[in-house]
């Protein structure tokens, strides 16, 4: 019966990560703040746009994000992936394994999101995220997520932080704000890039 809220920061950064590398599979992590049994995804940390099935740098990044989250009083709350094939909205076998590692690095209730590219267009009124929760060690797609429908008792609900999130994100994509997002892959090529916070972008999102 957990209620999950996705903040503008988290949603916009995940979408901008996709916008920067539209030809590739991209993935990243979500940071969660838990209060009164509710979970709020406060931020997204983009990880990679290349070799996303290969695990060593994923392991390094996950360990660093875990420590970073803890210092902020948050936890590693989720994983997002956007596939090269825009028709694919099912969590793949290898993504499921990575999501399991992410779940192990956080508290319980971690979410795996697959990005639905079809819902990312300029006029879209639906969030482009398909959530999966771990049930009996299997990742199960959550039906009617973000629909606002009264959830069956025991089911999780997903909402965006407010009704500005989609419009603000679409505006940022149109303005090519994706130029300001830097993932761990980019950081490994140039350590001066701030992949954990993406400060300049965060500020731009805040004022969007």
């Amino acid at each position, binding site marked *: 019966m957990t209620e999950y809220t996705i903040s503008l920061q988290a949603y916009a950064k995940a979408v901008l990560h996709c916008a920067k590398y539209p030809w590739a599979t991209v993935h990243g992590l979500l940071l969660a703040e838990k209060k009164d049994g509710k979970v709020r995804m406060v931020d997204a940390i983009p990880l990679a746009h290349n*070799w996303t*099935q*290969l*695990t*060593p*740098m994923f*392991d*390094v990044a996950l*360990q*660093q994000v875990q*420590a*970073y989250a803890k210092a902020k009083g948050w936890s590693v709350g989720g994983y997002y992936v956007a596939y090269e*094939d825009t028709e694919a909205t099912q969590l793949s*076998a*290898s993504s499921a394994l990575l999501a399991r590692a992410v779940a192990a690095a956080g508290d319980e209730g971690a979410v795996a999101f697959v990005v639905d590219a079809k819902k990312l267009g300029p006029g879209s009124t639906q969030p482009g995220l398909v959530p999966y929760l771990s049930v009996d060690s299997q990742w199960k797609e959550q039906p009617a997520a973000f629909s606002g429908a009264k959830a069956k008792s025991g089911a999780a609900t997903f909402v965006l932080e407010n009704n500005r999130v989609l419009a603000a994100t679409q505006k940022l994509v149109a303005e090519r704000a994706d130029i300001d997002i830097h993932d761990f892959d980019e*950081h*490994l*090529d140039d*350590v*001066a*890039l*701030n*992949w*954990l*916070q993406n400060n300049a972008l965060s500020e731009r999102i805040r004022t969007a």
Partner: protein
Amino acid sequence: SVLFLLDTRFNGSQRVKRLSGLVKEALGQSDEAHALYTEMLDKDATNVLASKRLIALLKAQGHIQQAIKELVTYLDTHGNDFEAWLELAHLYLAQHMYPQAAFCLEEVILQQPANHYFHLHYAELQYTMGHLDVALKEYLRVVELSTDNVRGFYGVKLTADRMLAEAKKGKGSGKKDQQSSNALRMDIVPQQATLERLSELATERLVSAYNRAGESSKKAAEKWLKE
């Protein structure tokens, strides 16, 4: 149309045929494009560009296994095309066929041994497969070929530390843990002292590299290096 004019002026031209195939693909006429490329290959089985167009078409349609089959056939004849071996490695990865992908990357490295990028790709695949010893060797080759390569040194430290941890676990249990030494291939395990020195070297080079990093990245990296 332009295509008609081209076809009239350059009748039977290979380039016009391929262009017309590309147009068909762009218009979503995949079956017609497929038929065209197959016809070109029936006339001349060694037509490299038609082969590649066919493979690209199959990949775009999501027929990965068919694309693999065609690419393997192509590589039987053109084994010196390292880019094709690289493409095949990626097709195998898409099918989670890791050993086959590794074989292809080995062919790439044989042909391009001085390019650190391919050693890096191979190292990361070997790590993913659990072959820490091979991964470590290849990461070391990366930093040899590309001075102070940050990704390379992260890999050296990650693999060396994990091998040290595995060795410690083995000692603690008192008997040779057959299961764990199968899961992580420890066939050619360097001496513990060597692993420790490699880990220290990697730490030192990373700390030096991170001097030019921003506050949060630097703190995060230094914390990771200490653990």
